[in-house]
Structures are given as C-alpha cells and as structure tokens.
C-alpha cells in the first residue's frame, strides 16, 4: 500500500499514540481488502454509542483516545436513552450514568453529539460523489443509494479511527467499478405506506444479501421511503447500495442489461409482515415509531391521526427522532399535539438500543421491519410489525386485534 510521508510519520507515532493506533486500524483494514492507498473523508458517523452495545471496554477505548481530536465533522449513532428525558422514560439511573460517560468521552474528542441514525435529516448530508466513513448501516445504505455519496459499512471502531485521522482505505464502495448493479429486481408489489417500503427492503436484503439490486417498478420514492427501505435492506442483508430506475442518481449509468432477474410481489410483502411478527393479538405495552428516526413529515402525519383522541392508559406511544427535528416539531406545535393525545417524542435514542428489557416492556408494535428483526434478541420483547396507521390504532386501543 502506498503511504505518504505524513502518514508514515503518524505510524511512527510522531503525532501521538491515538493517531498512530487509529491509522494502524485504517491501514490494517486496507491490507485485508487490498487497498492501494488511503483517501480523505469529508465526514464520519460513528456507531457503538448506547452503553448497551458499547460496554465497559468499548467505553475505555473511546476514553483512551483523549486528548486527540477528530479531524473531520463527526456525529454519533443513537444512544440508549433521551439525554434529557431519560428519567421520564424509565431508564435505570446506573445505566444513565454510564451512558453519560460515553457521551462525554465522544464529546471530548470533538465529536458533535447529534445521536441519530438519520444525520442526513439533521444537517449532515454528504454530497454526490463525496467519500465519507459512516457506520450506521441504514444511513450507509441511504447515503450511497439516494444521495450517491460513497462509504463502506464501517464498524464503530473503524469509523472512529477515520474520524481521528480523517482518512479511510480506498476499497469497496469508494471505487466506481464496485457500485454497479449486480441483479435486477422487478417490484410488482403495490407499495402504499412506509411500512410497505420497509417490508420491501426486508425482502431484498434477505433474498440478495450481498448484491447491489437495480429496482424497477418503484414509484413515489421520497426521502422517507428511501430511509425505510435502506434500513431494512441493511438489517436483513449486508446491503449497502441499491439503484432505483428513474430515481436514484447512479441508476442511469448502472443499467441492468443482461443481469440475473428477480421479482418481489404482494405475496412476498405479506410474508414479510407475517414472518416478522411474533405476536398475533393481545395487549401491547409499547408502540414505538422512529426506526430510523422519524422525519418532521412523519411526526406531522401522526399528530393529524391523533387529533382529538387519547392513547390507551395501558400502552405507551413513543416517537424517536433527532434533536433538530424535535426542536422544529416543537416550534410547529406538533409535539404539543402528540403529547396532548398522550404520546411522547424522545430524541437521541431508539427502541433497539434503549435497555427496554430493563424497563418493564414485553410487547411492542412497530412499523419498521428493521426494528422487528432486532427487537426480539436486542430487547427481548415480542413484536408486531404493521402499518403506521395500524400502530396508531393499537396505541389508542391498547391492544392488537
């Protein structure tokens, strides 16, 4: 691998231990993947933020990098709790204490403590063709596919290493030739609400875990739809890039001529809803919307559905979003409307990385296939995966019927 004189100096430790270790990580990954050099990144997004996933030793690693500072704008994945309202959420105090240690450790490195899986909805959107090092799998899939930025699926430690060095190894999806479609998928299923796009993503990731599909027949593909599809495709498979005919920026130059063909129909979608739901009926403790974090549009839609109604006293209705989106929703009166109906809007966290298993929940309704994939193992809750509207109905009635 070619390294510049400056990079060689960093590896000799001339700029301190933390930068040396972080560059060793980047170079080590480059060796494994056969990179010929390193390239600068414009931003990073770092996973391993909830104390539940990072753990004590992960926290010690982050702390050990201080007093080094990040070289490029960097943000974080969701934490295990709303950093302001954790007590109201019912998060145990000793978890909250450790979670705040994690946040402070990242903050000391100069990282922007925007804890969100959708930083692209909160002022951190890479431009077309820009090289970045992002870790959250749903955001990786979104920025590669919908924005045409370039990132591999980083792990927490490698994204952090890129943040400190401002570099990544030049391999994988950074290279033009690795971004072409590998299969064609004809989508004949009718896609109505966001959960249908989420179910479609789940089918794609499961069917083609290592592929870059070229999707035909997908219409009405806006930011929310792309966010939903990206998240579930990256959760059920290793998907980090797809192209949508007539929509996404690299679709045209990556046509699907001569590729193997697949199909997703209504039956596949229906199968996804059934397969991912471990509950068929009964009481639901928590209705959790915001995987990935909700946009302002989704919060407004919820407020409209909740108008003049009340959430059941036996169920909680929680929305998860990023801090900037919540601030805007507060200004517009949307948060007040949701709270008036008995719902809550939390920031910085989500239903998967919060310690739900220690907060007294055992059943949950979601409109996200990704949340449904992870909830039974990550949070030890039973789950029903259904539409946005049905989730709201469950919250009002307190049960799934």
């Amino acid at each position, binding site marked *: 691998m070619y390294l510049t004189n400056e990079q060689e100096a960093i590896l000799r430790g001339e700029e301190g231990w933390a930068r040396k*270790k972080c560059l*060793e*990580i980047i170079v*080590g*990954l480059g*060796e*494994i993947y056969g990179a010929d050099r390193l390239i600068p990144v414009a931003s990073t997004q770092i*996973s*391993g933020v909830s104390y539940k*996933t*990072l*753990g*004590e*030793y*992960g926290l*010690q*690693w982050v702390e050990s990098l201080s007093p080094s500072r990040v070289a490029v704008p960097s943000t974080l994945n969701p934490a295990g709790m709303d950093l302001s309202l954790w007590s109201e959420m019912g998060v145990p105090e000793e978890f909250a204490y450790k979670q705040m240690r994690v946040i402070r450790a990242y903050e000391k490195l100069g990282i922007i403590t925007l804890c969100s899986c959708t930083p692209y909805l909160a002022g951190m959107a890479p431009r077309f063709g820009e090289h970045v090092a992002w870790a959250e799998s749903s955001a990786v899939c979104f920025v590669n596919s919908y924005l045409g930025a370039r990132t591999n699926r980083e*792990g*927490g*430690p*490698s994204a952090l*290493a890129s943040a400190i060095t401002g570099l990544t190894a030049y391999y994988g999806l950074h290279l033009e030739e690795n971004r072409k479609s590998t299969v064609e998928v004809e989508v004949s299923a009718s896609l109505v609400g966001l959960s249908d796009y989420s179910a479609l993503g789940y089918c794609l990731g499961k069917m083609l875990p290592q592929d870059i599909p070229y999707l035909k027949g997908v219409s009405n593909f806006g930011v929310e739809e792309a966010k939903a599809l990206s998240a579930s495709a990256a959760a059920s498979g290793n998907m980090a890039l797809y192209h949508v005919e007539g929509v996404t920026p690299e679709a045209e130059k990556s046509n699907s001529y001569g590729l193997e063909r697949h199909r997703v129909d209504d039956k596949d979608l229906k199968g996804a809803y059934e397969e991912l739901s471990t509950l068929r009926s009964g009481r639901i403790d928590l209705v959790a919307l915001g995987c990935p974090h909700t946009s302002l549009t989704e919060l407004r839609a919820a407020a409209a559905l909740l108008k003049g109604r009340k959430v059941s006293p036996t169920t909680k209705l929680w929305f998860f979003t990023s801090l900037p989106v919540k601030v805007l929703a507060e200004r517009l009166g949307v948060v007040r409307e949701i709270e008036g109906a008995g719902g809550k809007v939390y920031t910085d966290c989500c239903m998967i990385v919060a310690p739900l298993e220690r907060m007294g929940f055992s059943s949950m309704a979601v409109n996200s296939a990704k949340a449904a994939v992870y909830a039974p193992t990550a949070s030890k809750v039973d789950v029903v995966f259904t539409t946005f509207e049905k989730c709201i109905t469950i919250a009002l009635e307190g049960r799934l019927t």
Partner: protein
Amino acid sequence: MRVIKCRKISSGRAEGLSLFSPAPISFFGTIDPETSVVIEKNHPLYGEKIAGKILIYPTGRGSTVGSYVLYGLSRRGLAPEAIIMRDAEPIVAVGAIMSDIPLVDKPESFDFRSGLHTVVDADRREIILT
C-alpha cells in the same frame, strides 16, 4: 524448525504454545469475555482457554462488537499472545490492533496443530514453529 511466510495485519512479536481451531471463531459469542474460555457448544475448542496462547483459526464471523470483546480480554490480561488466521476479517483485525496483539494471515500453508511452541513475528512476516 519450520519458518512459514505470512502477511502482517497487526504488528508485534510474540511466542507461546499454539491452540489450533479448524472451525471459525467469533469473539462475540464463541468466547466468554470474563474468562477467555470457548463457550460455544459443539465448537472444537469447547472448554479451552485462549488466554496466553498463539491462537490459530481459519476465519472469523459475527458482530463488530467483537473488536471490543478482544480489547476487553486484553485489558484483563486474558487475550491470546498472538493470532494466526487463514484469512483475517475486519472485526478481529481492528480488535488486535487496538490491543497490540500481533496478527498475521495468509500463511504459505495452513497446516497447524495445538501444543507446539510457536513464534509470530508480524513485522518480519514470519511464523516459526519449533
């Protein structure tokens, strides 16, 4: 004495007794992070302690949290002395670099067994069996 050429992933030199696994290892799942004992049922190394050994296995798998598990083992003095893999993967590579554990892969031949005195010299890209 046998010298086997290999590729360096994480630098350093270490020696010890080899512990060979023909099956893959995931640091998140296969190994108990508190004791370094292999806890995955039906694993060929089930019940063995990896601490202080030259750990040899073909490939890794599993969650990126595995990097932090390896780092945690090293902080508690329970990490292997060095790791030899047929094909290194990112999770163990990152964990080894974080923990200053020498890691090499792609040896000229992947023909190993347990209980041999083994030297891993990553910087010279050599494995020495005696």
